[in-house]
């Protein structure tokens, strides 16, 4: 079930020691590199931080000094908030990659959304240099301890972004599996462990936050043993807050995680990990060099598109873009190749030297879109602006699918597919913050399949596209399901079982992690968990539940289309598809909610929920009685003017269906009704 299959086999740990001895350090090369490097830094990275490394020679960014044996690629994976990004900070500081206390906390969380929400959304790579004394013996034989090049990838913890984790793992040979010493193993710990395990990666367990008063590392060790068969003595105990135990991490990375297995002498093969658009440089690709060597100026081709490019600028993230002119086997870095759009940069693609014959790397399974929703410009006329914003943002978040659609209520817009609701939320927020677009989003829906009496099938990503009174009878409907993992303190088992069965869940597994924690697996309709399931779960378990899911098969279900009508006119953007047993409740909730958010107008408004031609819920908003300013003292009309203009502006921002003005808020509010 793994999202990816790794092409490489792990290298034996013992091999690299013998190779270390044959390294030679050329002082001349070093000096030349130094000169060139300082210039390029100024030219290309004006805003990159001043850094100091623990290596003796600051100029040592000569990547040719780092054969695969001296390279370690690892990801930090964990459940949400267990301290991945904070731990990454400490490691960047420890290696002098960033200055202690200078950057913001969670340095690698660069997006505004990440900073505001305190979560990681996008995996980030940083290259560090670390001088490691072999066998703890610090140069007593007069020989230099070798420098290691370490690639750290900080990954998101939230389930929506597990795709980011999968991609990151493809560039790694090992992971730091971070577990909060107080919370212990949680749902995403399990999910991420399996991602790493199935990719054959070396797993280094790190029990973090041991400074907390409720920390119980022994219990966590026992959990790791019972759940994952990880040896308790392998676990490192750390506090990313106080710094305790941090010094063991990088030595453990070097000792336990194998060097990248690729072959320097083979033709170049690079895995395209990620891409984003930079206003000045254009498309920037993150790549892992699996085999061979990439030099600046090389002609390279994409296996997916067959297009050729020139490697105009290459380098590493240290932690900002730092040109190196070369990338060697096993290294992770960036390439600027004059691609015009990130559409040309297919994540998972294999890049190779033009006119060489290589076997493409396996790549990744495409991201699966779990929820769909319509995105419309909040101010009707701004379609072009929204179009532009979405185009730009999808350059940096390729995991969103976008197709144009039209709604009678909302006009021209887009149907977008997201990895989950948080992903959708983050996408909206980024559209607003980074591109200044204001959007109305329709109620998220999952992709259903309807079969009609003539045998035809329709995949429905937009409920409005399903006819309310179809000519052909619907003979069957299917809905997507997920396999959910829920971990909870055992006293909440009863409450959780009740919740899950309300959500039409089907129990697959029920066991205990230890004496206090239950582990449950359920098959649940995706629709049931999309909107408010996690909040509900947290509230009935006082916040102690953790929850993760992976997509699973479609199952047959009894589904109906629920229309919302205002003064008899259906509002296409408000249509939903619901399970027939819930139609009445949802219909009532939707109409009640709309009644509270639609303002009174100069006429009565009826709000109806209907299945086909059958009305199942109805509310009315009585006509407004009075809105008059019976006062116009001293001819001061400007004040009144302003007031009326404000009112007019308010109206302009509303969406009109028939004669009814619907505030944009109404669409936002509907999101909250499941």
């Amino acid at each position, binding site marked *: 079930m793994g999202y990816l299959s790794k092409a490489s086999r792990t290298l034996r740990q013992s091999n690299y020691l013998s190779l270390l001895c044959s390294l030679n350090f050329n002082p001349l090369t070093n000096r030349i590199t130094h000169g060139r490097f300082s210039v390029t830094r100024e030219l290309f990275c004006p805003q990159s931080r001043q850094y100091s490394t623990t290596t003796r020679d600051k100029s040592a960014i000569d990547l040719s000094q780092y054969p695969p044996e001296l390279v370690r690629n690892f990801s930090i994976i964990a459940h949400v908030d267990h301290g991945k990004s904070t731990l990454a900070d400490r490691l960047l500081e420890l290696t002098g990659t960033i200055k202690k206390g200078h950057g913001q906390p969670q340095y690698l969380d660069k997006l505004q959304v990440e900073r505001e929400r305190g979560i990681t959304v996008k995996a980030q790579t940083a290259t560090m240099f670390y001088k490691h004394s072999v066998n703890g013996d610090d140069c007593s034989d007069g020989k230099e301890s070798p420098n290691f090049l370490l690639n750290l990838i900080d990954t998101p913890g939230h389930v929506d972004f597990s795709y980011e984790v999968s991609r990151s793992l493809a560039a790694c040979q090992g992971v730091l599996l971070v577990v909060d010493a107080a919370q212990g193993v949680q749902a995403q710990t399990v999910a991420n462990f399996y991602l790493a395990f199935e990719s054959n990666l070396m797993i280094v367990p790190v029990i973090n936050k041991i400074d907390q008063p409720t920390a119980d590392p022994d219990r966590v060790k026992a959990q790791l043993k019972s759940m994952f068969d990880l040896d308790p003595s392998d676990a490192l105990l750390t506090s990313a807050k106080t710094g305790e135990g941090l010094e063991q991490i990088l030595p453990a990375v070097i000792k336990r995680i194998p060097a990248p297995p690729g072959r320097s002498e083979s033709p170049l093969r690079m895995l395209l990990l990620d891409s984003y658009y930079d206003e000045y440089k254009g498309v920037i690709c993150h790549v892992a060099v699996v085999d061979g060597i990439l030099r600046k100026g090389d002609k390279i081709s994409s296996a997916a598109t067959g297009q050729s490019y020139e490697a105009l600028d290459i380098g590493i993230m240290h932690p900002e873009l730092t040109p190196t002119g070369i990338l060697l086997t096993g290294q992770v870095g960036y390439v600027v190749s004059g691609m015009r759009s990130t559409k040309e940069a297919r994540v998972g693609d294999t890049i190779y030297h033009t006119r060489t014959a290589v076997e493409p790397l396996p790549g990744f399974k495409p991201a699966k879109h779990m929820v769909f929703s319509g995105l419309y410009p909040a101010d009707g006329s701004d379609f072009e602006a929204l179009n532009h914003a979405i185009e730009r943002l999808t350059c940096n978040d390729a995991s969103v699918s976008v197709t144009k659609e039209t709604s009678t209520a909302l006009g021209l817009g887009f149907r977008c597919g997201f990895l989950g609701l948080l992903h959708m939320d983050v996408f909206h927020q980024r559209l607003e913050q980074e591109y200044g677009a204001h959007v109305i989003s329709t109620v998220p829906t999952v992709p259903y399949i309807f079969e009609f009496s003539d045998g035809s099938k329709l995949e429905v990503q937009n409920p409005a596209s399903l006819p309310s009174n179809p000519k052909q009878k619907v003979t069957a409907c299917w809905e997507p399901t997920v396999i959910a993992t829920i971990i909870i303190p055992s006293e909440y088992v009863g409450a959780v079982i009740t919740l899950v069965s309300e959500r039409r869940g089907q129990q697959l597994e029920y066991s205990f992690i230890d004496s206090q924690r239950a582990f449950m697996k359920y098959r649940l309709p995706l629709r049931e968990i999309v909107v408010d399931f996690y909040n509900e779960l947290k509230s009935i378990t006082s916040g102690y539940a953790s929850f993760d899911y992976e997509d699973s098969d479609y199952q047959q279900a009894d589904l109906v289309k629920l229309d919302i009508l205002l003064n008899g006119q259906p509002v296409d953007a408000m249509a939903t598809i619901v399970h027939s047993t819930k139609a009445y409740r949802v219909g009532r909730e939707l109409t009640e909610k709309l009644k509270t958010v639609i303002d009174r107008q100069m006429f009565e408004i009826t709000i109806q929920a209907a299945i086909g031609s059958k009305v199942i819920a109805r509310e009315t908003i009585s006509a*407004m009685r009075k809105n008059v300013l019976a*006062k*116009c003292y001293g001819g001061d009309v400007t004040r009144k003017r302003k007031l009326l203009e404000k009112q007019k502006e308010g109206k302009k921002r509303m969406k009109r269906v028939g004669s009814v003005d619907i505030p944009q808020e109404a669409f936002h509010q509907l999101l909250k009704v499941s």
Partner: protein
Amino acid sequence: MLKSTFTPIFWVLTPKPNPQNIPSKALTRNFFTNSTPLVRHNASLNPATPSTPASAYIHLPFCRKRCHYCDFPIVALGSASTQTHLDPRVSNYINWLCREITATKVNQPASSTPLQTVYFGGGTPSLVPPALVSSVLETLRVKFGLCEDAEISMEMDPGTFDAEKMREMVALGVNRVSLGVQAFQEELLRSCGRAHGVLEVHEAIGVVKSCGVENWSVDLIASLPRQSSEMWEESLRLTIESQPTHVSVYDLQIEQGTKFGRLYSPGEFPMPSETQSAEFYKMASRMLSDANYNHYEISSYCKSGYECKHNFIYWKNKPFYAFGLGSASFVGGLRFSRPRKVNDYINFVQNLENGLVDSSGDGHIQGKDTAMDVVMLSLRTAQGLDLRSFQESFGGSAVLSLLEAYKPYVESGLVVYLDEQRRTIRIDDLNYSFLNKPNTEKRVAYIRLSDPEGFLLSNELIALAFGVIDSWKDCFPYQEAEAT
């Protein structure tokens, strides 16, 4: 001659049913697919005579104390101050006021357009000693001239004047009194923070009538906190019984920064509900109409011929001067508001004297802005919006866009379309046609809001027109339009 180069499109009456006619729907679509009509430049149609104001508003800001609902620029003198002739705050202010009048730039000599209306508003103008009022009137007379029969109004509060003071004011030329009664219930007056009681109200009415002021108004406030419909009915009844020629009914607005603003929110107890306050409005409209008052503007009623001429200047979007603290003038197309704080105001007057500021405009204003003002002000009146002059100023398609927008509200009875003879046009008789068809006299000549339903929703309805005007494609600056 310019007129003929445009094809004026008009809504006219067509005998119904008329099967030969192109279905009105189809026509409608043709006219309105382009929902953003072009508005033409028409300075030449509306000869550029930025008329010189013939009206002046004078702000006399003094009050004994601030009422709980008031957010106007006032100066509270203290409850004991009924004798204000010794108060230097008053005489100093009048001095600055006169200096402002004198320093104001005018284009014409005093004789050409003497003032036809003067309005002393406040504040409580009746607190100001007649001698000082006299000096203001004298200054106006010197500066602008003052018609023999000019309407000179003064807002007066019960408890601030006696028969002697009233006679002195009349002798100065004050010929219209606007009496700030507000309510006839002791508890309501007290809870609004009024400085007078019911007894003073009756006394004041007696004084006004006994001094022979023929043209006078009772001002009432509806929708006060804890006001019951019985109380409101009583106030209206007592008002009618005292036989003023004019009644103003203001609706309490809860303003931010006032005591009421801190205590209450609209529609919530003890404020009357929206439904209740709509009922108050309707009750006033019904009772006053039954007593032969014309509801000639949203908040104004009068016996035939006793409209407030000064206020009509506002509603017709005509220019007027304004002097004094916080007052707003409209001269040369510019709406200009004076500082609301005394010190700032004094600075302003000094700057005016030094020629550093100018309170009048150059006559150039944005067409859309004017269109909005015209619509907003004229729809407050029973006469409504005169489409002939609106078309002359803004073009036929501008008129059509309004007619189209209001059509549903004609159907629901909030808006009324009238023909040239001010007869109501039935909705089924409406159709599109061209003006060059013969039956021109049957076209829609006025749009007005219905009384009371349309007036009650005037903000909504006017905001609707704003939306329409806003979407006009283009509007050139032009000289001036009056809602005649």
